[in-house]
């Protein structure tokens, strides 16, 4: 009888092939490094800078980057852009992550129930999901944002409320195929309840697809937060976010282009990095890519 050799049997999955496949994906590794650096900078950076993000220095308005003590220049009120950028990064990354967690949670619960139960409950849940997909997300967001107090928590909730559908559909599709497998019957056979089967037996089997979708959701949530803040319905000044920094910048595009370029780079960096990570995870968690 062939036995697996003890080394592979003892290795936890995260030291296994998936990690090695991920490490081979250069862009994904680059993306991970970028996100780690960006997060570290946003968390630990602001106290290390000479100015805080609300300090107004009217004599140094519109300083271009790398002049004086302002590494990235100043805005129309003479506030330090480096400090604002990092503080804005805290808000934007936090909103992105929190919206991802919330929307993944909603999506997983709806998807798993729809996929496992099937029947009219499943159909009703999936049509509900589809009806959410019908709305153009950005207008829905703006409409919602216009009615509520735009603080980071509410922004997170409305972003999550408009971006859980994709995960719900992915999860429902995965669960639908998984629930026909014999181990589900075997679990029923040994007395497991439906809730146990859904969350303990089936969910871990779909986790790969969920992680990939969740990563891409972070990227999208950051971008959406930037949209609505740019349009003035999102995070309100003086609290900075990458989006509202861009909003302030548009009227000075010709005279002080760095006002737009710097937060623009930050958004681009964060969003593309998350997308690369998602790509890398997709390849890493799909065992078939080993065959290529």
């Amino acid at each position: 009888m062939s036995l697996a050799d003890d080394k592979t049997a003892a290795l936890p999955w995260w030291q296994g092939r998936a990690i090695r496949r991920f490490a081979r994906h250069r862009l994904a590794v680059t993306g991970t490094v970028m996100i780690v650096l960006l997060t570290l900078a946003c968390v630990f950076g602001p106290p290390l800078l000479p100015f805080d993000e609300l300090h107004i220095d009217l004599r140094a308005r519109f300083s271009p980057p790398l002049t004086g003590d302002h590494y990235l220049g100043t805005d129309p009120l003479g506030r330090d852009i480096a400090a604002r950028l990092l503080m804005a990064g805290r808000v934007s990354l936090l909103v992105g992550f929190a919206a991802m967690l919330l929307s993944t949670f909603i999506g997983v619960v709806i998807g798993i129930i729809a996929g496992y139960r099937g029947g009219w409950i499943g159909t009703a849940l999936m049509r509900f999901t589809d009806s959410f997909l019908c709305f153009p997300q950005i207008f829905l967001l703006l409409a919602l944002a216009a009615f509520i107090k735009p603080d980071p928590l509410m922004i997170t909730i409305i972003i999550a409320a408009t971006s859980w559908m994709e995960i719900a559909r992915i999860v429902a599709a995965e669960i639908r195929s998984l629930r026909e497998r014999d181990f589900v019957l075997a679990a029923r056979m040994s007395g497991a309840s439906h809730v146990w089967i859904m969350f303990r037996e089936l969910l871990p089997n779909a986790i790969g697809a969920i992680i990939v979708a969740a990563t891409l959701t972070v990227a999208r949530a950051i971008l959406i937060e930037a949209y609505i803040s740019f349009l003035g319905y999102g995070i309100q000044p003086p609290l900075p976010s990458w989006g509202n920094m861009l909003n302030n910048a548009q009227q000075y595009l010709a005279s002080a282009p760095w006002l737009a370029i710097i937060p623009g780079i930050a958004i681009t960096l964060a969003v593309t990095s998350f997308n690369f990570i998602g790509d890398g995870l997709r390849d890493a968690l799909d065992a078939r890519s080993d065959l290529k």
Partner: protein
Amino acid sequence: MTARRLTVTDLSVTFRTPDGQVPVVHGASFALDAGETLAVVGESGSGKSVTSLAVMRLLPAPPRAQISGKVTFHRQGRDLDLLELPERQMRRVRGDRIAMIFQEPLTSLNPVHRVGQQIMESIRCHRSVSSEDARRQAIEMLDRVGITEPEARLMAYPHELSGGMRQRVMIAIALALEPDILIADEPTTALDVTVQAQILDLLRDIQNENGMAILFITHNFGVVAEIADRAMVMYSGRVVEAGRAEEILTRPLMPYTAGLMRSVPRIEDAGRSEQDLGTIEGFVPDPARMPSGCAFHPRCRHFEGGLCDVEVPPLEDAVPGHSLRCLRWRSLEGARG
């Protein structure tokens, strides 16, 4: 006299399909004693698996599958009517008092959980024991089902084990709580012959130790000869012959059973041409378009028009303890061949 474990009386199952109501099991009755192995034999589609799933109440909910009859589980002098039991109580019976192993050990284990975890979970699902105790019990079970280095194997994922080992793990899970009844649905079909023999030996050893009753579903007469005390042959959802395994194997009375026996290749026949192996012409009838009378008559070589295709033959005793459904068995008995 040994204790009765399970009595199934007049069990019928009907599925609702787009083509209408399709009966797949008609009035199956049988009983199972402690320490006894009853083999349910039949071709694919004969209703043997559906029977076992009905006993466990694992068929789809009523509008899609209607079950009638009575399934009584006898336990410590009490009788539980399994078909009437509330789902919560039924869940406590499943896996604990009645366990089941399946045909496909390759897919019956959850691929993302370690096997140790899966054994421990099924123990802790029914007993309030500490994870330490569950772990010890899991190691003991793996050892008992003949897995070497059980402690190291606890940490293995199903894909790291061979088919035979996975089936052993399934058996370990099924037997961890010392069930009164084990339903084995073709547990050896997907395994090669040597492993098959090991698994059968293992089941028999455990049965001798703890006296559980085994309902063994198979289509393989070799396996029946190996393990069964009694056998029950099913065809198109009906029990067509039942009795002591030895008797059915040596003296099959129902033409269908006889045909099945003839179609088992034997080692003595090696080298002879293919035509010499007996076959049963035709296919199992579609349950939605059942032939009239004896369901087997279109394929029966002893078919007699005007008799076999008129009425469903009743189940009658040929000798006490050996019953069959055939109107012509008496006249065939002398001229069988």
